[in-house]
């Protein structure tokens, strides 16, 4: 196995391997997220086109040829139409999960040929209080940990299922929705930008939200806001973790909702090593005269490195020594990065 980075862009999918850039694959498609399934080596891409709509592509020959999933549909009685596919996630068994806009989750049990919408979210009793964020009402985060399934939707909030997706509990207690000044801590409606579960610490979740960075140690039942302690801003989109250390996280703060560029005229990654109590700027190898933006799927990590894909088309990687280096540049605007294992 060799390590690879799958880079989804506005103009197709690129694959970074051993210092080379392959692609574009799926020419003309916007790749919101892509993964390689370790079980069989298949590639999956949440692919969208402004004319031809939203779909999922699958390749079993390393991107030489692609098959498109059968039409993705939502129940007619729901009145919903699929606007975009956002995130693909492997399940612990043979299943595959797909998040989409408008706040919907699909499951495939046939290797991505067909996807069935999850009724428990389509028909969630709080849906009438959800609203789309600037990127739409996207289900962008799907996490499976400790036998629980987590889904995060902008701007509906985070949800947890303990019965395989049949029913969903909102888990937004303590998460602010400052854009609702009359009710800044509602049950749902929070604008979560990215949610991750730590793979080794049971119950530990992290989220980068429109209104701050948060950590939970009880499967999302309660959240602690982690700012005012080194972060120049609580606003940002991606978050990355260290699989070996549950107290480590990385974020890329932006000025704020009304000016979505990296803070202080530089590209700054902020790291915590103590569960979010303190954050420090990492600057070695990152440009210090820069006004950049990174999308919610624009960070990825493995056991040794952290990766950052920018809308400017550059990819940076953080080595074990804490220094960052540019490993690719001049790609189309980057929507996602994901680590894969190349068979």
């Amino acid at each position, binding site marked *: 196995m060799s390590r690879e980075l799958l880079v989804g862009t*506005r103009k197709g999918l690129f694959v970074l391997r051993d210092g080379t850039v392959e692609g574009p694959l799926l020419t*003309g498609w916007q790749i919101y997220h892509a993964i390689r399934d370790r079980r069989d080596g298949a590639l999956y891409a949440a692919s969208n086109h402004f*004319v*031809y*709509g939203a779909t999922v592509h699958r390749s079993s020959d390393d991107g030489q040829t692609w098959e*498109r999933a059968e039409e993705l549909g*939502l129940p007619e009685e729901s009145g919903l*139409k699929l606007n975009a596919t956002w995130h693909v996630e492997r399940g612990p068994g043979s299943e595959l999960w797909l998040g989409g806009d408008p706040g919907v989750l699909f499951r495939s049990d046939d290797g991505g040929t067909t996807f069935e919408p999850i009724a428990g979210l389509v028909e969630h009793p709080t849906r009438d209080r959800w609203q789309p964020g600037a990127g739409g009402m996207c289900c962008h985060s799907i996490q499976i940990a400790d036998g629980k399934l987590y889904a995060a939707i902008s701007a509906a909030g985070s949800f947890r299922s303990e019965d395989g997706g049949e029913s969903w509990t909102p888990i937004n207690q303590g998460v602010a929705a400052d854009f609702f000044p009359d009710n800044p801590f509602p049950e749902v409606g929070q604008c979560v930008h990215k949610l991750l579960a730590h793979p080794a610490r049971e119950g530990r979740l992290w989220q980068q939200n429109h209104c701050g960075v948060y950590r939970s140690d009880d499967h999302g039942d309660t959240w602690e806001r982690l700012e005012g302690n080194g972060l120049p801003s609580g606003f940002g989109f991606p978050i990355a973790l260290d699989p070996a250390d549950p107290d480590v996280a990385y974020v890329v703060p932006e000025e704020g909702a009304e000016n979505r560029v990296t803070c202080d005229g530089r590209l700054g990654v902020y790291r915590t090593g103590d569960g979010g109590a303190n954050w420090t700027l990492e600057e070695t190898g990152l440009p210090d005269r820069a006004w950049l933006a990174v999308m919610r799927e624009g960070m990825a990590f493995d056991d040794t490195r952290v990766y950052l894909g920018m809308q400017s088309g550059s990819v940076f990687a953080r080595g074990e020594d804490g220094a960052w280096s540019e490993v690719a540049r001049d790609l189309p605007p980057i929507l996602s990065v994901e680590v894969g294992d190349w068979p």
Partner: protein
Amino acid sequence: MLLPSLLAAEAGGRGRFETDAGTIAEALRALPVADLLLDERGELRPLVNVYVDGIDVREREGLETRLDGPEKIRVLAAIAGGWL
């Protein structure tokens, strides 16, 4: 029927199809890229244009536009300039 390059790629590299369908809806539904032309309710996607002998089907009977046999059907993505 003629497809643009992205749709031809999605159709396995094939950009030209023959049809004996009676309507545009039937002709489009028979294509291997039907889901990219029609939305989940079976309606023509807003930025997909279909021309029969050079006339936009939206200026005729839409998806119910009748086909007699010799027509040339052309699928095109609408002009949509901007940030994309």
